[in-house]
């Protein structure tokens, strides 16, 4: 199997990727105003508060938009084609990119309910994807 390009976790993002390794989807919640945020970052976009706590998401989401890729820009994904990849909105309100599986590509619709699963890609990195149903 060809490995996809892998993330290089940094100080702001390490907890998200550590959570994925445990098959937990982790996002930040602002200590000041309670707004959940993703991708991880050092300040709240709503209240500019600097303190946040990591919380585990329910893992349930709805498809916001998607595409079915036939000729990927990166060669590492050629062995998967055609594959569906989209942007999902989690119950907590934040958006994440991920592949959408367990559904025929032409049956994907905006609002389709999906839940998170994880691929253990290396001993360090697990990548979340989204399964219909």
């Amino acid at each position, binding site marked *: 199997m060809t490995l996809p390009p892998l993330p*290089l976790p940094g100080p702001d993002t390490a907890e998200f990727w550590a959570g994925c390794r445990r098959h937990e989807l982790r996002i930040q919640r602002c200590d000041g105003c309670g707004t959940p945020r993703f991708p991880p970052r050092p300040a709240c976009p709503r209240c500019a508060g600097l303190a946040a706590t990591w919380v585990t998401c329910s893992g349930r989401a709805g498809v916001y938009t998607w595409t079915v890729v036939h000729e990927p820009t990166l060669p590492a994904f050629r062995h998967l084609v055609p594959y569906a990849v989209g942007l999902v909105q989690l119950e907590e309100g934040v958006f994440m990119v991920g592949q959408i599986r367990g559904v025929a590509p032409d049956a994907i619709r905006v609002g389709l309910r999906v839940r998170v699963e994880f691929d253990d890609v290396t001993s360090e990195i697990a990548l979340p994807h989204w399964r219909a149903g």
Partner: protein
Amino acid sequence: MSDPDRIAVVVGVGATRFAARSAASEPALAMRAIAAALADAGLRPADVDGVVRFDREAVWEYDLAFALGIAPLDFYAAVPFAAGAAPALLRMAALAIGEGLATVVLGWHARSRREALAPLVGGEQFRVPFGLGGAAEVAALLFRRHAHRYGTPPEALEVVTTTLRRQAARNPRALFRRRPLGRAAYRRSPLVAEPLRRADVAGAAAGGCAFVATSLARARDLRRAPVAVLGTMQVALPSATRQLADFVRFDRERAMERAARALFRGAGLAPGGADVAFLHDAASPLVLFGLEDFGLCPRGESGAFVSGGGLARGRVNPSGGQLAEAHLDGINNLVAGVHRARLGATVLVAGSALEPTSAALLGLAL
């Protein structure tokens, strides 16, 4: 502001030959484009005292000093976000001239390499590992959302792409000048990321473009009719390629409309009131987004607009743009815009709708 020493005008533009690939280095392409722009303006390298460039550029300020004898520089600046940067170069040049920081400002961009994948340390780590590898995939997914919200049919992409290919046939510089694309041929173009086809995505290109700006006062002694910078804008939207999750949360439509209205108002024009628009078109959906952002059609109606003949008479990207002239991060759209303004048109040049972006309005200086 009416001091002719402080009014910025474009007095020269230049470009290399455009190709799908080139054995020439990016520095070599940049030098050729710069030399062409200076010759067009009737200026010498020693006249240049300011430069503006993209931040990701193979030629830096000190390279110019040794390669062309441009030194010393009183002003230099670099603009980030390649696909959104070209009009901002003109904004920086106009700023430098308007503030008296420099008298002759050169701007350029050259490209010949394929973009290498950078280490995934920033927002890309939440996009690229999942198989959303490039701007084509991102544009496809954002078009799908536009279609969901406004009912835009995929046939609108076919109209955009076939129109730009037809327009390129009249442009001797265009890579696709001898490769027209009818509607049947478009439908045979393989799917890349649904509903985008290969023809909807600008491929790799090699080339360089440059411009020279100076004051209206100085332009009176030069050979070209000066093209005035009627207005410019920048908007720091989230980047769809770097921060896709932020991009869809942010009300980019309102932010773009507000900035675009101010741009036209500042130039004394009605919203969308340019004769010709050059909209960044690295993928065909970006043209639809640009038409709406800049008020060339109402929000959400770009599909009906293009299907109803809104692109007729070469009003949008008459050179063929990135899709059919050459994919050079929009710098060629800026040069093509200057050529049109020299013929008397009021011209809008706009950067990518997917990135922190910029736009400029050009017209003949009176």
